[in-house]
């Protein structure tokens, strides 16, 4: 057992309001400088949609992350070392500016300096790269709130991969419309393919907290990290010629402060905490044959900080005592492992991502709600999980390599918290019992406080 500590994030998509404050505060703090105009260490996508850069989730196209070879061994999807070396001057799997977007600004000064006789001055878009007038056709959040969805959202890899039956539930018409938001940062994976992809050895995962960084002194700008990351969360600074990525705000983390995106998250949906894991088991878990078992496999790598043996071993191996204590209070560990309401993003990429998500509830599928729900029972106010607008199978493609069951468990637990708490405040019997979803009454209370009261001190440990 090699005990390591990882700072880990959970985002509760059921609370995400899609406001993009995280994107703005992150950008203002880290990337509002020449060379990184198009870079969003943190971005937010509307789902269904193809995301940013476009269709990044499709690894058949981009060849990011890992795959198993015929013998069941883990290897980079981008191919062998030799293959990558041969293509070092022409990496075929890099997203182009079209997949990101051409960053732009405006000739603002004209508003003030317009010469006499200029009728109602209006400024136009200029490329931040060339300075030429341009008409934006794509952007970091072009699809916000399903803009352009009828034309493009069906290319969403999570829709493409839907099994028959579930695919029919996704009709892009007014009656069946659904959407939710997916904020994304670097996953700071346990098994980061970007690090393994770097020909210069310029990327590393910090031993003390697992944060994955690009060494700005040694990066040679080969960009294999860009193509190697299946989440497309390593970017190329076209000014410095080096790769840059989300740093998990390590200068703040080191000072005991939450990341910028967490602290400024006005939806209060982000949790930060320590998770202890057994580094010796990562490789084996990442090589689990059945993709739908990768979620369980990753859970199996995590260590229970309340286990005295784990704690002792951790401290023996150099994890500070206060980190072990923090791991016990960790909200992320609780949401991921204790309550199992948080799930990993695309475990099938086999990078063992460490930013996890609580899936969102949604309105009932029927706009009319003529069916579903018993009109005479006014206390049966919450719908069943399979009656919701967002198809469980769609969420499963995001979080569990297609297995809908863990998604159902998570959603039913959220719904149970709601039902139990509703009953409690109205002095009635709950329509759902905690036991039915494998929770105790105390679990419900604790989960309620963690999800709803969510004090600053409890969100960021």
């Amino acid at each position, binding site marked *: 057992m090699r005990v390591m500590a990882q700072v880990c994030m959970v985002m509760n998509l059921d609370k995400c*309001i*899609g*406001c*993009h404050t995280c*994107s*703005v505060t992150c950008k203002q703090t880290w990337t*509002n400088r020449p060379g990184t*105009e198009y870079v969003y260490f943190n971005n937010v996508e509307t789902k269904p949609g193809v995301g940013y850069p476009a269709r990044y989730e499709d690894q058949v196209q981009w060849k990011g992350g890992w795959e198993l070879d015929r013998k069941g061994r883990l290897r980079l999807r981008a191919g062998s070392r030799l293959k990558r070396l041969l293509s070092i001057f022409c990496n075929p799997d890099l997203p182009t500016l079209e997949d990101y977007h051409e960053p*732009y600004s405006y000739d*603002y*000064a004209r508003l*003030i*300096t317009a*010469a006499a006789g200029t*009728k*109602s001055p*209006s400024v136009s*878009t200029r490329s931040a790269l060339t300075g030429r007038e341009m008409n934006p056709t794509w952007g970091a*959040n072009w699809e*916000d*709130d*399903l*803009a*352009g969805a009828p034309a493009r959202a069906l290319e969403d890899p999570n829709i493409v991969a839907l099994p028959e039956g579930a695919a029919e539930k996704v009709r*892009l018409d*007014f009656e069946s*419309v659904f959407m*939710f938001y997916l904020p994304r940062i670097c996953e700071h994976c346990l*098994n980061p393919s970007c*690090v*393994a992809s770097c020909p210069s050895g310029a*990327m*590393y*995962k*910090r*031993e*003390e907290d697992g944060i994955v960084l690009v*060494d700005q*002194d040694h990066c040679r700008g080969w960009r294999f990290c860009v193509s190697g990351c299946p989440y497309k969360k390593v970017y190329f600074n076209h000014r410095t010629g080096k790769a840059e990525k989300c*740093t998990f705000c390590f200068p703040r983390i080191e000072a005991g402060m939450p990341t910028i995106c967490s*602290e400024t998250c*006005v939806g*209060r949906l982000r949790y930060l905490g320590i998770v202890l894991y057994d*580094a010796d088991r*990562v*490789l084996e878990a990442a090589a689990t044959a059945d993709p739908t078992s990768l979620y369980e496999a990753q859970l199996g790598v995590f260590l229970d900080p309340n286990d005295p043996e784990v704690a002792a071993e951790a401290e023996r191996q*150099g994890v500070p005592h206060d980190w072990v204590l923090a791991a016990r209070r960790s909200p992320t560990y609780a949401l991921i492992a204790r309550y199992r309401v948080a799930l990993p993003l695309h475990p099938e990429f086999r990078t063992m991502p460490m930013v996890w998500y609580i899936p969102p509830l949604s*309105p009932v599928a029927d*706009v009319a*709600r003529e069916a579903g729900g018993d009109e005479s029972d*006014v*206390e049966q106010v*919450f719908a069943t999980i399979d009656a919701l607008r967002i198809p469980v199978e769609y969420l499963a493609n995001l979080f569990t390599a297609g297995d809908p069951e863990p998604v159902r468990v998570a959603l039913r637990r959220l719904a149970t918290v*709601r039902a*139990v*708490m509703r009953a409690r405040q*109205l002095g009635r019997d709950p329509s759902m019992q905690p036991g039915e979803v494998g929770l105790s009454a105390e679990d419900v209370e604790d989960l309620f406080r963690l999800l*709803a*009261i*969510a004090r600053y001190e409890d969100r960021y440990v």
Partner: protein
Amino acid sequence: MAPELEDKTAQRRELLSETGLVRAARYLQRGTPSPDAREIHRRGGRRAEEFYRERWRHDRIVRSTHGVNCTGSCSWQVYVKDGIITWETQAVDYPSVGPNSPEYEPRGCPRGASFSWYTYSPARVRYPYVRGVLLELFRTARAANGGDPVAAWAEIVSNPETAARYKRERGNGGFVRASWDEVLELVAAAHVHTVATYGPDRTAGFTVIPAMSMASYAAGTRFYSLLGGTILSFYDWYADLPPASPQVFGDQTDVPESADWWNASYLIVWGTNIPITRTPDAHFMTEARYRGQKVVVVSPDYSDHTKFADDWLAANPGTDAALAMAMGHVLLTEFYRDRRVPRFEQYARTYTDLPCLVALRPHGDAFVPDHFLTAADLGGEPGSQENAAWKTVVFDERTGRPAVPNGSIGFRWGEEGKGRWNLDLGELQPALSFHGHEGATAVAVNLPRFDVGGQGGGVLQRGVPTLGIAGKVVTTVFDLVMAHYGVARPGLPGSWPTGYHDADAPYTPAWQETITSVPAAACIRIAREFASNAEASGGRSMIAMGAGTNHWFHSDQVYRTLLALLMLAGCEGVNGGGWAHYVGQEKVRPFTGWFTLAFGYDWVRPTRHMPSTPFWYLTTDQWRYEGARADSLSSPLGSGRFEGRSMADLYLMATRRGWIASAPTFDRNPLQLADDAEAAGKSVEDYVVEELRTGRLRFAAGDPDHPANFPRVLTVWRSNLLGSSGKGHEYFLKHLLGADNAVAASECPPEARPAEVLWREPAPEGKLDLLVDIDFRMVSTGIYADVVLPAATWYEKHDLSSTDMHPFVHSFNPAIAPPWEARSDFDIFSALAETFSRLAEGRLGVRRDVVAVPLLHDTPDECAQPGGRALDWTAGECEPVPGVTMPRLVVVERDYPRLVERWRALGPLVDELGAVTKGVRLPVGGEVSWLSARNGVVRDGIARGRPRIDRDDLFCEAILALSGTTNGRLAVAGFEALEERTGKPLADLAHERAGDRITFADTVTQPRAVICSPEWSGAESERRRYSPFTINVDRLKPWHTLSGRQHFFLDHDWIAELGEWLPTYRPPLGILETFGDQRREGLDRPQLVARYLTPHSKWSIHSEYQDNLHMLNLFRGGPVIWLNYLDAERIGVADNDWIEAYNRNGVTVARAAVTHRVPPGTVLMYHAIDRHLQMPVSETSGLHGGTDNSLTRVVMKPTHMIGGYAQLSAGFNYYGPTGSQRDEIAVVRRRSQEVEF
């Protein structure tokens, strides 16, 4: 980080990298990279971390916030490095709201987070600018007039040729820099000339929502108040004022703080997109869901908030009232008729007008509602009581006789009412209904319906039980409500629905389905859940509402139908229940101090408050394009009193009756008027009445196109009037400014013109002599202004912020000094006041000014016109009596040369008169000595010995010292004064904080929780969240209405004319019926006619931030119009194509956002799109353009002009016609994809 700590961290990092497994992973070096290569360490690599540490390092953090156009009032930390503002993050140090609730941290949104971009933006206004042609004219004229700037200004504007020369260049670039001194002199000269020539009321100031930078607002309004200028309202103009709130509650708007959503167990979100418009508060909603709150969203589109719904009711745009009426039908049927709920009934009897008696009058073969029965109708002892005509009557079940309960407005004013203005029913048991009552007679009543027969609607016949009382046929409001909602009871005549599924009879669930498209079953289910939840939870059902339901012409009716649901279920005045109106609502928590200072009430009272909607309606000549006459809105049950009248006529009628303010007021300089009265040897009142009678003096509203009645000077600060709130934008350009414009409408034909308001030919263009814009960024208002002054941003000054969304007051502080030549609004007006005073010396002197004040709400004047009878003295229906049948006439002394001395010191009027809020007088005199010590005193001049308020931080200190919410002593004293009137204990609400005083320094340290104060209607403390009317409910303090209760029924003559006695459904205005097809002829491309909605945007707060680079890069980089893909297909539009949207009012250009989340037939252009960014030249108009308001135009609703009648009385931003814009349609087509800028 402390140095020693930093060392340790560095050491630890070094250590870790030494002990880590270092494996070479380079292809170009020896060694085999492990697939598990995450543990590569190199010392050099760790050193490179310094790059990001350096990026993070900063010198200091300063607390500030964002002022003006957002009601969030979030406290922010502004980071400064090397004297440069770098970025901002939200403050997280709000005081706790308790261990069992989510806290108020963080607060802020992406827009606020991007604000610092403006500081150094290339669009920042850095210097004073004047359009070159004007500056040249001014310099020439000044030189020609011996250096006299006032004479120079007079020469320029009185010469039509020179005036036209600079006016027609408005909006055409050509700004040049000028010095502050020169520009201030130009602006001050224009003011001096205008005051002398036309009158002070021909100058006007427009600024908006003070709560989010109180001192900046007040700096300008204090200047105009001391000057006698017109101070324009904003809340009604924005259509954010819900007129239903004054109508029902007698209160402008009072809403729960967002933490109170947590207490709701059922939440219907109905017309407010909470994640977008209440971004910092939305988490309380998402979190309350885990506490078991059910969330229902009513919205025509699937939007950011729909995502959180358990049920989504996709009602067609503008039909919300139909759905609410049907829900009311279900509620009344199941919870009042089929079953009786004791709590609901007790609530209805005590807190609503449902038991109040209404006299009916015959109408054809039936009856119609006439008026509230009052003590005066009863005669005898009750009839001889003080204010008998202002005391409503109930029927006491115990005695079987009519009775006069405490609490109506008749008890609020006068000696006899002392101690009796309360809702204590004592022994009284008011009957809700006469149904089944012995001796009751059932009669048929005619009631209006508007689902048929166009705007005027048709007639329904139903029945009510009545009793004969005081010689009148009388019923209860409740019985009328039951009849109106169509809840059948045995033995009543008329036609009734056969059941919920009777689709032909209003207002059944099946009926609403035909209008809203919401299935009847859904309507029934939600209504039932809503009421049942309220029953189980003691009223904790809440409806959050906003622009989606309030920006309609008939929004007051929409809201009344929603409020009816809440009142019937006993939810108002309950924590976690009631209405939650969130659009443009704001709350200057330290209201009394702010109001007193902002409007100069410490020196002179009153000021010239003016509702903006009629002001702009007349001054931008939108009245000349009115398509429908006022009587088109009259119900068939009306008396025809609006026949042949236009909306402009009605406004003239309303203003001369003292109902509503009008400025400019008379067709004579009000300074001259005072002199003329003196010359005639008469009192001003007598003189003005006589002059009006003889017709020698007329109201300016009767002749708005006469040059003497134009507003001449307009200053806009903290606002983007032209690019954001200006409904009828193109009419502003044309008539007010005389600039190029895209108005395509033709003026109304002679037969449709006003009967009284004078029509002049040709319509004037360029009425305004001077438009001054004070802003830190260049937007439409600046682009079209004559003078642009560089304002400090919100991170460069001191100020105060508060909101109704949270209970705190916190500060603005300068992170840096205003850069370039920018100055704070406060300092700009201080300098302007100084320059003005200097130029006034020898030109204006000390003058007397006649101010016509409408009959004001929360003063005894609200009891001027009993019975709500609309009597016109010009028609001989009554005598013209100032303060009774016409405006009160008040003479105010203006000391023009010493205006600046007054502006800069706290005046003496507060010492004796105190400060008054909503009829409650706070004895603030005692605070003056505290302020004198704290702020220091003026050493010479007319303000000698008075506290200084000449700096923004000192001004803020004075605001806090003079308000109950921030000064516990005043809160207690105010409650004690109120106790005298109500006879009920109240002061204890503030006792626990009686000794607290929040100083400005406190607000710099941390946001501070305010003190419970009589300035507001809810109790609040550490233990209790603010919710409106909880004091009314808990302490039996009446609402500020006629009955003292919440009103279902309204009985004013003009209300009756429109058939709006009761909440009802009125469809959106029939634009196509009135104005005809708006498609353009001769186009080969297909055109889509669609409902045109302008909801609030995710990427801006009004027009702010829409030009911010961060926001632009986060969506589509410029204006878009959203439309359904089926509509897009029909007109050949693909996503991101350039399109044009137009109608008779103007045109705008945008790109298409094609989606499936918007229903077919509706297009959305998120407000506000200014015309200065990524706005191509339109194929239709040949101009860049335009704004989202290029397609809109103001229509005034007659009932919003009512006054002099209890809660339907004038008040600034309290009651008045709203600038609604949702009833409009747009024609959309694809345009050439070649665009030009």
